[in-house]
């Protein structure tokens, strides 16, 4: 197989029915979906691994996932079919069991005086809201009904309705509003201090109404079956080869120029690299980018690996969304990072099958970060600051774990391996401008662009996360290409 890839034939002058730019979750899903129905598809990826924000890497003899904390939308007991994850498996004809997902233990949203727990039983989440906010009961129920009546997945849905304002119309306790915004923003808002209502509903359902899970072997459990099927169906894929320029004529894409200078032709082009990033590749691109269109949300993520299982320290939870004030700030910080709020993930704490477990403990912590500040650092300072920020982040995060402060004292010595992932890393590996985690605030729900045969899929459709990006890719393949045939 590696042989075949190395001696890959020249592409120059070739024509494909569909070219998919980017082999992240959205690109993989749309390419597979199209290959299933006999389209000639070329999937181009400029990086050397697939997965985009959800790829994997090796460090110190260990394998890590880049962006997998939790697979959302895990179908709750007894109502499996309502989950978009099941829809996705059907559309890609991948048996749900093949993903080998194990559910979370429980997770928390931790604010100064409130610690809300949830697991994959929605009724438990509801009882926690009731316990902590008894006076909000009727209003919260009304909010749930508003959300249920809202078709968040519709391609026609308005993408610019503020969730903060809708929550404000329904609820009276500001703290409950912040507690609902914190996990949903972290899992998918491209705008600062808010999230659009459609994404809010999708993510609320994805996290609370459905649930969190993870395969023991990580993201490759998702990537491998997709690649295998895609290849069996004859889909073509090229790694280490990006699209450089998109030549347009009369409102249509005419030709794509690749990084190696070759030119290819396609009836349809699906770009998963982002709305602004795609516009910049257009031959007709104007030099000035509207800076408002570039996403401002980026992150610093640290991973610590140690010998013990986290449960041995008394850390049983899977995810903790924490915030040290009553108001949740979700914005580009003034400093390199803002350690006052973040997300902890302990991947060991999924309920893996009896007798199976990750061999070492892992603690992942994510905080918001300022892209401009990180790129301004020279190499030495970059390394130094990564270390300083990591420590500051960990220091706060440990305060949200049981006995975290005291256990944390010698955690450094126990640590076998550290890794850190900055806004610069995101841009380097995905090409996303400004290290924007969830893309641009300007979304194109139906994937349309001013060019009739060029569509956007993934994050800048407003479909985020692993399941979201894949559903977005499938929707574009269906609605833009297969349906119109």
């Amino acid at each position, binding site marked *: 197989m590696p042989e075949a890839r190395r001696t890959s034939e020249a592409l120059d002058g070739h024509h494909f029915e569909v070219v998919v730019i980017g082999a992240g979750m959205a690109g993989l899903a749309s390419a597979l979906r199209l290959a299933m*129905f*006999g389209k000639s598809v070329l999937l181009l990826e400029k990086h050397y691994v697939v997965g985009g924000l959800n790829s994997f890497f090796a460090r110190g003899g260990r394998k890590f996932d880049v962006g997998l904390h939790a697979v959302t939308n895990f179908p709750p007991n007894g109502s*499996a*079919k309502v989950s978009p994850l*099941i*829809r996705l498996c*059907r*559309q890609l*004809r991948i*048996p*749900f069991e093949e993903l080998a997902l194990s559910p979370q233990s429980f997770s928390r949203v931790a604010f100064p005086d409130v610690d809300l727990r949830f697991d994959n039983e929605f009724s438990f989440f509801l009882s926690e809201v009731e316990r902590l906010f008894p006076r909000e009961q009727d209003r919260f129920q009304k909010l749930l009904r508003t959300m249920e009546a809202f078709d968040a997945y519709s391609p026609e849905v308005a993408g610019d309705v503020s969730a903060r304002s809708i929550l404000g119309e329904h609820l009276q306790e500001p703290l409950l509003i912040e507690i609902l915004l914190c996990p949903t923003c972290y899992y998918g808002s491209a705008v600062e201090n808010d999230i659009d209502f459609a994404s809010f509903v999708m993510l609320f359902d994805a996290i609370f109404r459905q649930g969190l899970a993870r395969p023991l072997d990580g993201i490759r459990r998702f990537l491998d079956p997709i690649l295998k099927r895609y290849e069996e169906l004859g889909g073509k894929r090229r790694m280490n080869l990006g699209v450089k320029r998109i030549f347009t004529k009369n409102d249509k894409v005419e030709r794509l120029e690749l990084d190696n200078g070759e030119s290819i032709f396609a009836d349809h082009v699906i770009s998963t690299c982002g709305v602004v990033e795609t516009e910049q590749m257009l031959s007709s691109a104007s030099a000035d980018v509207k800076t408002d269109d570039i996403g401002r949300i980026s992150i610093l993520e640290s991973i610590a690996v140690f010998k013990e299982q986290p449960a041995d320290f008394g850390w049983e939870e899977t995810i903790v969304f924490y915030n040290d004030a009553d108001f949740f700030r979700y914005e580009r910080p003034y400093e390199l990072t803002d350690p006052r709020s973040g997300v902890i993930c302990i991947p060991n704490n999924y309920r893996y099958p009896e007798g199976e477990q990750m061999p070492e403990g892992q603690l992942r912590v994510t905080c918001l970060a300022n892209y401009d500040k990180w790129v301004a650092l020279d190499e030495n300072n970059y390394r130094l600051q990564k270390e300083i920020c990591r420590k500051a982040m960990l220091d706060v995060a440990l305060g949200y774990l049981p006995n975290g402060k005291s256990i944390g004292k010698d955690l450094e010595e126990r640590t076998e391996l550290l890794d850190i992932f900055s806004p610069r890393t995101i841009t380097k590996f995905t090409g996303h401008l400004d290290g924007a985690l969830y893309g641009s605030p300007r979304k194109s729900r139906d994937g349309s662009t001013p060019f009739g045969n060029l569509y956007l899929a993934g994050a800048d459709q407003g479909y985020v996360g692993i399941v979201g990006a894949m559903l977005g890719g*499938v929707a574009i393949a*269906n609605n833009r290409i*297969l*349906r119109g045939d």
Partner: protein
Amino acid sequence: MDKEKVKKIVLDIIAEIAPDEDLTDVKSEIRLRDQLDLDSMDFLDIVMELRKQHGIEVPEAEYRQLESLDSSAEYLFPKFEAKAVA
């Protein structure tokens, strides 16, 4: 080819795209949506599989004809017949 065969073809396709559905008791006259958990994406797949496996085209405006097994059989049978003759 007869209408029962057409129903079987449609059911086989549903079994393929929705392996998690129990198809043992599907009633011919009742809308598929009302007895199974199928959405518009699944109906698109039924159409795509009809084309892929049998060369039968169903234009988008006529997807509704596949509402139930009975209506599918009525609608698809002439198409299968025409194929067999051709």
